[in-house]
């Protein structure tokens, strides 16, 4: 079948198939601005980082950085062996960051789920409680960090005072240096980030039909059984996404340790973003900093890839 179309004063003949195909073709040109921005903001700097990681870019060469001396893999070797400012090496920092992000996510997940379940049923003052739960999340990170720094102060911080009053610890328990600094960072981050899981789970709970619970109840299922057989499986896709985003977000947390401990921090709290920052911007070793970043990127891509595959997030969240 053919149709007559008047195009620019001329009669042209198109088949219906041609017209439909033309109409159905995705307008790829509309993504050109996004692709351009991605190129400028992500791709180009990424390739510059790769280039930088093979150079001795420092305060003496930054003015003409394209001509910084080429040093091969030296920065990569230093990244594994030498710490920034006598701090942790990239490998040590990577371990600190991985432990920090995984532990924080492990702690905030049950808190977030329980909080979401609590406010998913209607009760008087629910709106107020929901708003209250969001306070730690909406507080700026630096406010959170300064507050926790004060709380963890040795001798006169509230944490030491309470521990000492309850005979659970010495009033001279150092939280901002030494091994405890890692736990201070975890506690502060758990406090501020659990509402993220809460929000995601709450959104997921809204999507579960009440009919499912009703049927289960009629079949004699207990609340606990309903939770494990209905709620958790239905939340799996969104919870998986939340855990992935949470882990990555904690891994990249820079502000909290930067403000809580200053630079350079204790090696136990020397997370990778902070280590890269000190190396690059405080000791002017941009080449080494770039090498450390790239090593991290490669190492982080491996679990992220398997994690996403395992959860089949693409299919299920679609």
């Amino acid at each position: 079948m053919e149709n007559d179309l008047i195009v620019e004063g001329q009669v042209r003949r198109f088949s219906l198939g041609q017209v439909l195909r033309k109409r159905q073709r995705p307008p790829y040109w509309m993504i050109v601005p996004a692709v351009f921005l991605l190129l400028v903001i992500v791709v180009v700097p990424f390739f510059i980082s790769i280039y930088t990681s093979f150079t001795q870019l420092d305060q003496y060469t930054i003015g003409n950085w394209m001509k910084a001396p080429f040093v091969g893999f030296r920065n990569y070797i230093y990244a594994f062996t030498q710490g920034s400012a006598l701090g942790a090496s990239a490998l040590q920092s990577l371990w600190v960051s991985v432990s920090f992000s995984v532990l924080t996510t492990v702690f905030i997940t049950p808190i977030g789920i329980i909080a979401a379940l609590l406010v998913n049923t209607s009760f008087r003052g629910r709106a107020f409680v929901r708003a209250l739960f969001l306070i730690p999340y909406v507080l700026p990170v630096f406010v959170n960090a300064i507050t926790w720094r004060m709380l963890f102060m040795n001798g006169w911080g509230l944490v030491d005072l309470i521990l000492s009053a309850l005979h659970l610890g010495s009033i001279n328990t150092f939280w901002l240096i030494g091994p405890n600094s890692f736990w201070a960072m975890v506690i502060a981050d758990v406090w501020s980030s659990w509402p993220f899981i809460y929000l995601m789970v709450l959104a997921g709970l809204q999507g579960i039909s009440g009919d499912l619970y009703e049927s289960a109840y009629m079949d004699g299922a207990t609340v606990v059984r309903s939770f494990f057989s209905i709620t958790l499986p239905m939340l799996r896709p969104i919870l998986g996404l939340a855990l992935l985003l949470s882990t990555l977000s904690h891994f990249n947390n820079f502000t909290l340790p930067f403000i809580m401990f200053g630079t350079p921090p204790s090696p136990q709290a020397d997370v990778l973003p902070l280590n890269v920052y000190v190396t690059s911007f405080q000791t002017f070793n941009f080449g080494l900093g770039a090498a450390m970043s790239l090593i991290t990127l490669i190492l982080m891509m491996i679990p992220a890839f398997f994690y996403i595959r395992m959860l089949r997030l693409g299919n299920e969240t679609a």
Partner: protein
Amino acid sequence: MKHKSPWFVQKASLVGAAVVSMAALIPMSAYAKAVSQPVALNVFVGYNASNPKAQANLYNNVLIPEFERAHPNVKVTWSYYSSASQENTTLQTAVATHQGPDIFELGTTFVPTAYATKSFHVLSAKDWVTVGGMKRFFNPQLRLSGPNPSHYIGVPEYMLPFAMVYNTKLFRQAGIKTPPATWAEFVSDAQKMTDPSRGQWGTVIDPADSFDPWKIVWAYSKQLGSDFISPNLKKVTLNAPQVVKAMNFWFDWLIKYKIVSSNDLTYKSTDAMQQFENGHIGMWVFQGPTMIPSLNNSAVKGEYAFAPLPTIPMGMKSRPKGGQPTQTIVSGQDLAIPTYVTGAKYEAALQWINFVTQPNQQREFFDAYGYLPINPAAYTHDAVLNTPMIRAFVAAEMHATPTPFTGAWGNLETIFAGVTNKVADELATNTYHAGDIASLLQAANVQVQQSLQQ
């Protein structure tokens, strides 16, 4: 024959016309700009945390309007950095991209790093005439403007000589008549004022701070006759016995003499400040006049004074051979112009520097936030600038010792902070052993040596 569709021809013509018009407009607009637009000057300064309102008022309502009245073809804007980190990263971005602020306000110890980037104008003799001449400034301050007088990149803007601030009430209560002149007296006086049961300590340390610790250890090392870097700037000497001794002495305030609280191990400068302001601390070394406004709003208002640092090392009757009576580093802020600033803008930048370093403007800086004038003429016939306290700072400035002029100084500061942090870490966790300071300084020495330009 297949002919081109009319819509394509039309669109191609339109696009062509647009491109031609744009091409024509660009040089025209550039010309128009050059003819009619005033010179836009952006000044990048440090944030005044103790009195931001006064700073904003000073720039917006006093300095800029006054300057623009005298230079109608220049429009000045100002922006600020709120930390040394931001100062660092903004400078790095500017020198790498060749764009950014037109005038940088740089901390004096940061000038050598800026010089190492080769991205700032070396002022010519003519430029110095434009900014008022070298004689306008306190001479010690110029020693960190560049490696030598013919290679100065920084023009002093104001000075911040250091001294020791002490609590006069605690001095009276302990029966101490005068501030200590030797470090032995310092320790003895601090012990008299220390009373842990009342949370009162003779002095305070802040090993978690990124910048305070090196100043004290450096000054003491100078008094012992050493430095952090050799005079020819080729060799790092953080492992020198004098430096090791100096750092040991600083930590001995906690370990041996018990004149500081163990709580101090996590302190940054702001924490130490808070303790002093609460009246818990007898003496706090290496502090400058900028803390005066804050002290006047604290519990120690009217009960504090400044004194020079002791200059005779602990256990000695006089300084050893080569020891210098160092009481303060050359400290303050310099103004420097990046090389991407050229032509009329460069001239305008020089005019601005000339403007803000004149006595009236220097006095405005002092009134707003306590920065001491860099121009000796500002002190003439000015009662406010001739109090005993200010005279003590000016006297300290006359004996200020410059830190080594090397591009690696920034690295050294950070790595040194790593050492103090690590020692504090060990002390807090009871894992410190005698000799750890020496081995950590040795490791730091190797790291800083790598960043020295050979």
